[in-house]
């Protein structure tokens, strides 16, 4: 016990604690208002933040919002939409079917994880979840293409060549858009001479997703 008394007596930590306490008091009011607000307001505020981030993807420009205020809600929503739409009907004759929900889910998250890990290993100065957030949000154009393909397949039973080409074009545009958006946000985080090394796995990741979208039937 005597040791601990000496420690507390000699350490200069006390001053810092009081400073922290002062800051906590200052922020107290804001926290209380956040806690007291209706759930609807909280949800709406979060949805607004997610929608704002989607707008950054639609019109990609140098902006640190995605990196600074990262969240995984947007990627989760996009991933769930894509997995639901890609969910294939089981073929009773052969036992096969389209990609299953869990498969798409795993591909998206494991793929984003691998790409992020690769950028970390190459020396990129970006945190793990920031990168996963950007990669997830940048799936947005591909999800739009997926919705288009799904609508075309469901509404029109007989797929003509024009429709297939149209689907391919939509998917290609979505693919290009996704890469362009992700490079806008992640490009600066890579070492100067090695941007190409970080870009290749991103292209491969989105290519597999785009291929799944394009081959949906």
């Amino acid at each position, binding site marked *: 016990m005597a*040791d601990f008394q000496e420690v507390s007596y000699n350490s200069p930590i006390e001053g810092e604690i009081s400073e922290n306490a002062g800051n906590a008091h200052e922020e107290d009011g804001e926290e209380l208002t956040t806690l007291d607000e209706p759930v609807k307001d909280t949800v709406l505020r979060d949805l607004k933040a997610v929608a704002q981030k989607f707008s950054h993807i639609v019109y990609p420009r140098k902006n640190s919002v995605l990196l600074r205020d990262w969240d995984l809600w947007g990627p989760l929503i996009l991933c769930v939409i894509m997995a639901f739409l890609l969910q294939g009907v089981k073929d009773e004759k052969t*036992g096969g079917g389209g990609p299953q929900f869990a498969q798409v889910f795993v591909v998206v998250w494991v793929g984003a994880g691998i790409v992020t890990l690769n950028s970390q*290993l190459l020396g990129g100065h970006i945190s793990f979840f920031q990168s996963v957030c950007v990669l997830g949000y940048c799936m947005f154009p591909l999800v739009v293409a997926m919705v288009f393909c799904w609508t075309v397949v469901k509404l029109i039973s007989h797929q003509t060549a024009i429709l297939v080409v149209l689907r391919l074009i939509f998917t290609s545009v979505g693919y290009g858009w996704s890469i362009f958006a992700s490079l806008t946000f992640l490009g600066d985080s890579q070492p100067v001479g090695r941007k190409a090394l970080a870009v290749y796995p991103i292209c491969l990741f989105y290519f597999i997703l785009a291929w799944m979208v394009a081959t949906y039937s």
Partner: protein
Amino acid sequence: MTSHNSDWGGFSSGDEQTSTQDQAQHSSKSAIIDMGNMDDSSVTSSWEDVGDTTHRVKDSSIEGQEGPGMVSGISGNLGKAVADQMWQSGQQQARKMIDVYANIDILRPYFDVEPKVLLFRLGSSFLPLRSLTTPQKIPNELYGPLMIVFTLIAILLMNMKNAGTVLQQGTLMGTAFGICFGYWFGVSGLIYFLAYLCNAYISVVQCLSLLGYGMVSHCIILLLGHFTHYSHGVFYFLWAIVAGASAARMITVLLSRTVGKSQRLLLCITISSFHMLFLLYLHFAYHQVVKDILETLDKDLIPAYQAAEDNIRVARDEPESEIAAT
């Protein structure tokens, strides 16, 4: 708590004894180690304190002013207290965290490559060596091979989908992952084992790198097959020329590092046969699957299948009798 205190006390006193014995000879060495301990900001505060304490103890022993007062000083107590707390509460968590970061740091040198060097290595993976007199260097790099394996997975997925491969147990993605990584790790491990037996000095990473760059030929041939739907003749031609060149590269590299005819023969036959047969397997198992299975079916069933040939998907991991029954 008290027992740990005594442990730490014992540790420091033991260190002190050894330091007094060896100080005259190794004073500069131990000082460097202590400075490293002190300067390393990534270690926890407890270790810094312990290093600090031992450093001071050693300093005191150098000056010949060894006394109990230094150990029981304020800083020493602080170090003991913090070290005890850390030792009891956060040892495992800290070790886990350090392990994670250490693993990333361990892997980082293998990903240290310039794009130009990478392109050069990709190109030279098809060029066999001309001179076998000097041992050829094998790059200790994993970025290129890893990306080649991922590319092969993507191409294999496209081929599987194109060929209408259906798996009763498992998914296309999982199968492609399993095949490519299984081949890469499995054959690399085997080559490493054989190289160890044959005294070819090659590390595991070098094996992975050598085999990984060899898989570029698989990617090129399968990708061409996906887009052009070439005949078997064209495939065999590409198989012999492109995959053969890449196998020749691997063989010559291994030859330059191995001494002894039988050892060379063993290594070269193993790596080349695995390399060439793997491509054959990928082509015939996942590229022409529908056609080949249809050819093997009974003639009576063929008209029924041909009527709906566009929609046919045959489970690859089901016995043919069951397929025929459906």
